[in-house]
């Protein structure tokens, strides 16, 4: 429902009751609402879980009353992101049309006058006839200023009384000075020498027309900078098909997505967009998640798998349980994060911010100084020169270009990154990642899939393979280590019975121990065996080394102090890790791998993916000290990890990258979140941030140069040498197009494509 309608018709309010499920709830809620003074009626629809209340009562009061009988209610009239966006576009369109009309009005007077002057027509007031004609034109000009430039004058006045100054101040002062000087000459020409009896009505009208044109084009161009966010918002479905009980019978109901509540069963058919996040209850399908993760291949989903809003169901029909709705869905959080990041400023923009704060008054002072210099030292007619130079200085200065330089590029850059499945937290992360010189990659889950599999069980004593697996799996059920999960899964696949483990203890960096079926078990690396006095024969060590050289992780299993088996687990390398790491190296980035694994396995993986520098057997808590070490060497360090085990290292690194698996994003934990598992996201993130920073620099340099060079020109610095003085009309055109140039340059970033891969 549109919220403007809701505000207009305050007498009827619709609320969604999140947890109402039975007929008795209806009576309770209706009664609670009807007992409030001012409520005329309250009717609840259990199937839709909505209640419509009439009467003049504040919504808060209603929500409180419902809470007092034990239910949660929320407004059904909240405006969705999409509606807000539509409203914004309509408002901008209207504003654009208004500016264009004002432009034509300004230019409608300005162009004929300027053509007349260029053709040699006198713009002077020397006879009574000229006075009358110019008086009429001056009054028409005043009407034009009112109709086409009222917003500048009101804005200038309002900010002046607030002791602040902005672009309106400059435009109002510039055009105001030109008009006032001209009208004074028309009314009383004799107060200035004959040579100075020149009118500038054409400049006034032209400047107003041109600046309105510049603003109109800027509105259009700005709209394009938010394309990425529009695309994300467009991913939100409008309705959902939920299965709810209506009069004792389960029925499919099509409802607006705002009305979907937690634990609703949602049905999605092939080709439909998922309305909320959830877990699959029934059916099997493949889901296209590319719009969120950038991962092109559809992902298979079946019972228990997580699905997310905004993705598209491809092949089968599924029913899933809603687990996150409204503002909690991954998509809503992504939209929120992108919006927030788009509005945050990287440090490079801070200088421009400081300057903008002082800019306008400084320009006003320069205009006064310029006029004084002309009056004191200029040629005749000094007064006319003083007016022209002051007007031109006021008009040419453009604080907007300076102010827009950084935010426009950040808007486009952050949006561009989001399109590639890269979520940048803020402007600072964007800027720092463009400067990264060293990238630390965690091995498990980053370079590899993070889903290890048992590859070998090398039995060295009398026990058989299944009994060994059953014992190890029993021991490892309590462990959260990914390798442990691989073993438990393998045992489950073979349907082996597991026993209870006693005295379980995990020894950091070594392995685990425990008692199963009265057997003392140790499972871990060579260090653990050595410390527990389990002897390893030369042939056993050779076998283990062989496994390690094949990029497998060998682990020893001892029962009652004797070695029983070597179990190798291998975590496959992601398909595109090699090419992504090559891309990083091609960019001159030093790539370093960290792993808790043993030296031989680490070396095998590093060799395969082309990494020459790696640290093996690093304890989780030592990861940060490796980062610090690199920083000490003067490197700007990026750290990529899964965002959970690596949190301290991610925090210490100059930029922490959390690598997601699918849409399971660790949004809050890192500076940059890569939504898909591929390391290409890393190279993309760096490429986008570099392109954005280059764009910001171009904008800032352009805006600085323009203002620094433009103002002295306008003041007439060229006059003593070349006899040249800038016309205020040219200054108006230059100002109008300077901010447009900045926005357009930022828009160029939309076409940036990270390298093909």
């Amino acid at each position: 429902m549109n919220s403007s309608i809701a505000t207009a018709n305050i007498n009827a309010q619709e609320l969604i009751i999140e947890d109402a499920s039975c007929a008795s709830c209806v009576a309770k809620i209706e009664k609670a609402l009807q007992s409030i003074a001012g409520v005329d009626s309250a009717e609840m629809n259990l199937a839709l879980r909505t209640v419509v209340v009439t009467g003049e009562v504040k919504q808060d009061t209603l929500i409180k009353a419902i809470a007092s009988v034990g239910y949660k209610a929320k407004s059904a009239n909240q405006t969705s992101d999409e509606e807000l966006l539509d409203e914004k576009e309509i408002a901008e369109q209207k504003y654009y049309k208004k500016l264009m009309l004002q432009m034509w009005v300004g230019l409608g007077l300005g162009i004929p006058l300027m053509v007349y002057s260029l053709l040699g027509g006198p713009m002077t007031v020397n006879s009574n006839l000229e006075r009358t004609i110019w008086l009429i034109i001056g009054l028409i000009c005043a009407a034009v200023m009112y109709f086409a430039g009222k917003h500048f004058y009101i804005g200038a006045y309002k900010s002046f009384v607030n002791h602040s100054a902005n672009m309106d101040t400059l435009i109002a002062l510039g055009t105001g000075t030109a008009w006032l000087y001209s009208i004074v000459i028309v009314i009383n020409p004799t107060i200035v020498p004959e040579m100075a009896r020149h009118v500038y009505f054409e400049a006034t009208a032209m400047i107003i027309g041109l600046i309105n044109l510049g603003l109109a084009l800027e509105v259009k161009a700005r709209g394009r900078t938010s394309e990425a966010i529009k695309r994300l918002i467009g991913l939100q479905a409008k309705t959902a098909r939920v299965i709810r009980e209506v009069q004792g019978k389960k029925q499919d109901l099509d409802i607006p997505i705002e009305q979907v509540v937690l634990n609703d069963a949602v049905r999605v058919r092939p080709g439909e967009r998922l309305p909320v996040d959830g877990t699959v209850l029934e059916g099997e399908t493949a889901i296209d998640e590319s719009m969120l993760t950038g991962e092109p291949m559809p992902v298979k989903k079946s019972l228990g798998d997580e699905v997310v809003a905004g993705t598209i169901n491809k092949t089968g029909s599924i029913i899933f349980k809603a687990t996150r709705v409204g503002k909690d869905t991954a998509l809503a959080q992504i939209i929120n994060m992108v919006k927030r990041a788009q509005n945050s400023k990287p440090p490079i923009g801070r200088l421009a911010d400081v300057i903008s704060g002082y800019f306008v008054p400084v320009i006003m002072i320069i205009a006064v100084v310029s006029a004084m210099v002309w009056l004191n030292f200029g040629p005749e007619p000094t007064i006319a020169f003083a007016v022209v130079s002051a007007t031109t200085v006021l008009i040419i200065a453009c604080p907007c270009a300076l102010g827009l330089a950084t935010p426009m590029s950040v808007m486009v850059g952050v949006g561009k990154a989001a399109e590639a499945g890269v979520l940048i937290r803020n402007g600072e992360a964007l800027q720092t990642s463009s400067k990264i010189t060293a990238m630390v990659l965690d091995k498990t889950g980053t370079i590899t899939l993070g889903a290890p599999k048992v590859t070998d069980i090398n039995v060295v004593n009398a026990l058989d393979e299944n009994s060994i697996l059953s014992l190890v799996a029993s021991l490892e059920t309590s462990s959260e280590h990914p390798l442990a999960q691989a073993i438990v899964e393998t045992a489950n696949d073979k349907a082996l019975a597991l026993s209870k483990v006693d005295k379980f203890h995990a020894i950091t960096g070594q392995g685990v121990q425990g008692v199963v079926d009265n057997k003392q078990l140790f499972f871990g690396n060579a260090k653990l065996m050595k410390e527990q006095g389990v002897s390893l024969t030369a042939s056993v060590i050779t076998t283990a080394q062989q496994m390690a050289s094949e990029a497998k992780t060998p682990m020893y299993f001892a029962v009652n102090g004797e070695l029983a088996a070597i179990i190798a687990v291998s975590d496959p390398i992601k398909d595109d890790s090699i090419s992504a790491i090559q891309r990083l190296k091609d960019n001159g980035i030093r790539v370093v791998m960290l792993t808790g694994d043993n030296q031989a396995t680490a070396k095998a993986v590093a060799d395969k993916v082309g990494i020459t520098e790696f640290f093996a057997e690093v304890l989780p808590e030592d990861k940060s000290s490796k980062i610090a070490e690199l920083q000490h060497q003067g490197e700007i360090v990026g750290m990529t990890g899964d965002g959970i085990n690596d949190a301290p290292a991610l925090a210490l690194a100059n930029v922490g990258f959390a690598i997601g698996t699918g849409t399971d994003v660790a949004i809050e934990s890192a500076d940059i979140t890569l939504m898909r598992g591929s390391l290409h996201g890393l190279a993309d993130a760096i490429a986008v941030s570099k392109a954005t920073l280059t764009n910001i620099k171009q904008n800032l340099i352009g805006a600085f140069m323009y203002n620094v060079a433009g103002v002295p020109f306008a003041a007439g610095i060229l006059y003593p040498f070349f006899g040249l003085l800038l016309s205020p009309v040219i200054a108006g055109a230059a100002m109008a197009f300077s901010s447009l140039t900045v926005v357009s340059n930022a828009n160029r970033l939309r076409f940036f494509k990270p390298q093909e891969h």
Partner: protein
Amino acid sequence: MLIINLVGLGLIALIIWWFWLYKPEVTQLDENNSQSELTIIVEDGTYQPANISIAENKPVTLTFIRKDASPCAGTVLFPELEMSGELPLNKPFVVSLPAMTKGQYAFHCQMKMYSGNIVVE
């Protein structure tokens, strides 16, 4: 000529005083009463009120009503708090500020042409 130069210098002094030295009026959300809400109108290049003083460690709610169609007025940023909002036209937009420690907290549009200041005392 002397008079003209004096007028010019006077103008410069006036600009410096008016825009930089003058201490603007501050709207107080004072600590004694329970008021923790304020409506700010965004119109004609200004926030009204633009200078706000609030008590330390007290969360406040600012409701922005944007009446200016210019896209410049469309975004409000609180850089120190890393917060921002897109202001819809002619509709209230609520910004809930967390409890803040003593200091100055600016709020402004993307280009800093609209600007305001929160003083936490």
